[in-house]
């Protein structure tokens, strides 16, 4: 067996340590070792975006990242969005704007939208569609997802004002 490696990173603000084989994918570490099952396994082939997590300020597909690549990184998953019992503006907006039906893609959608709004706090519909294109949804037709992201952008701007 290949040499296992100790990997330390911050997950939703908390320090975690794991010991993994180099071939272990981040999505498996999150779901199976750390019981963070918000990021979903959809396609396992870098297409669907259901496994999206925020890694050092980047939205990444955790099925295509090795856990050993994450030493010293800071990670945010959907489990880290709710703060003190209050939902994040994106979570509220997906609820209020009906941005989901079955909900399978939602953790990835919200995690991706979080980084998009950090980079571009007031995106146009076209920009949302372009920069959210790595996340697939088979239910909604995307219309309400776009609305939810726009709604969240307004809420976040109002909260910051």
């Amino acid at each position, binding site marked *: *067996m*290949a*040499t296992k*490696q100790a990997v330390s990173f911050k997950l939703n603000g908390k320090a975690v340590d794991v010991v993994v*084989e*180099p*071939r*272990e*994918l981040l999505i*498996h570490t999150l779901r199976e070792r750390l019981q963070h099952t918000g990021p979903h396994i959809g396609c*396992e*082939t*870098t*297409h669907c*975006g259901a496994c*999206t997590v925020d890694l050092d300020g*980047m*939205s*990444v*597909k955790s099925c*295509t*990242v*090795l856990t*050993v*690549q994450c*030493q010293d990184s800071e990670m945010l998953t959907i489990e880290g969005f709710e703060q003190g019992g209050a939902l994040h503006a994106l979570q509220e907006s997906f609820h209020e704007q009906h941005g989901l039906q079955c909900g399978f893609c939602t953790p990835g959608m919200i995690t*991706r939208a979080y980084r*998009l709004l950090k980079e571009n706090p007031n995106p146009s519909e076209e920009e949302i569609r*372009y*920069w*959210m*294109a*790595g996340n697939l949804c088979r239910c909604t037709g995307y219309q309400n997802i776009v609305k939810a992201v726009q709604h969240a952008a307004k809420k976040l701007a109002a909260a910051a004002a």
Partner: protein
Amino acid sequence: MIPREFEYHAPKSVQDALGLLAQLGDEAKLLAGGHSLLPMMKMRFAQPGHLIDLGRIAELKGIREENGTIRVGAMTTENELIWSKLLQDKCPLLVEGARLISDPQVRYKGTIGGDISHGDPGNDHPALMLALGASFVLRSAAGERVVPADGFFVGTYDTLMKPDEIMTEIRIPVPAPGTGYCYAKLKRKVGDFATAAAAVTLRIRGGAVQDVAIALTNVGPTPLKARAAEDSLRGKPLSDASIVAAAGLAMNICDPAADQRGDAEYKTAMAGEMTQRALHTARERAGR
């Protein structure tokens, strides 16, 4: 889908990476952004015994201009290309091309050096590099050499890069002010490789084509430089008719493999169409 077992190395300098490469030899593969190699390893098309991750080497990142040349570190990501003010101002073709690569998440990880050195004719940077007259810096324990993009791509997954070399930098001559440009890419959906694509740079002076470069993606075993098409346009006024004729010459060199994106005839026709569209757009953008 889980890769075969391998050992993982994360050197902090090019020097250390070259040392590992020399020591581990054929068993080792270089890991850049990992968005071609890791999927291949998950499907077990690639089964390296050792991965040397270049992701912790700071000297392989960054974009700067020096003496009329843009120097891009090989580990610079696609999103970093897209957001670069320097490239937006001085080399917008590279920004336009990077925006058409895969999807946002992949662009946070995928690198220009990985895209080029992988040797996949479906990758977009190779044709962009041919159109921009770029060259690549390859470093080994023995030293450094600079090779032009034109001639670098030998076959499918085959380039001039030797197993003991690391691509460290991409050098692009700053295009002259007023250079027209376009990357026209036909793809079935976000995230797909090109059915066919054409990269064009174009300089027009005194009503005639002073210089033009045309390169094609995914319509042969390597990216293709459409030399006859370029020659047909140089020194003459650019007209709708000459664009159609040049596209026909570009189609003559296409040798695409049939797959789910279409048969050879369709892909060749689309290469012609992309060549026409890229030339038209480049003409609109070119200074006179």
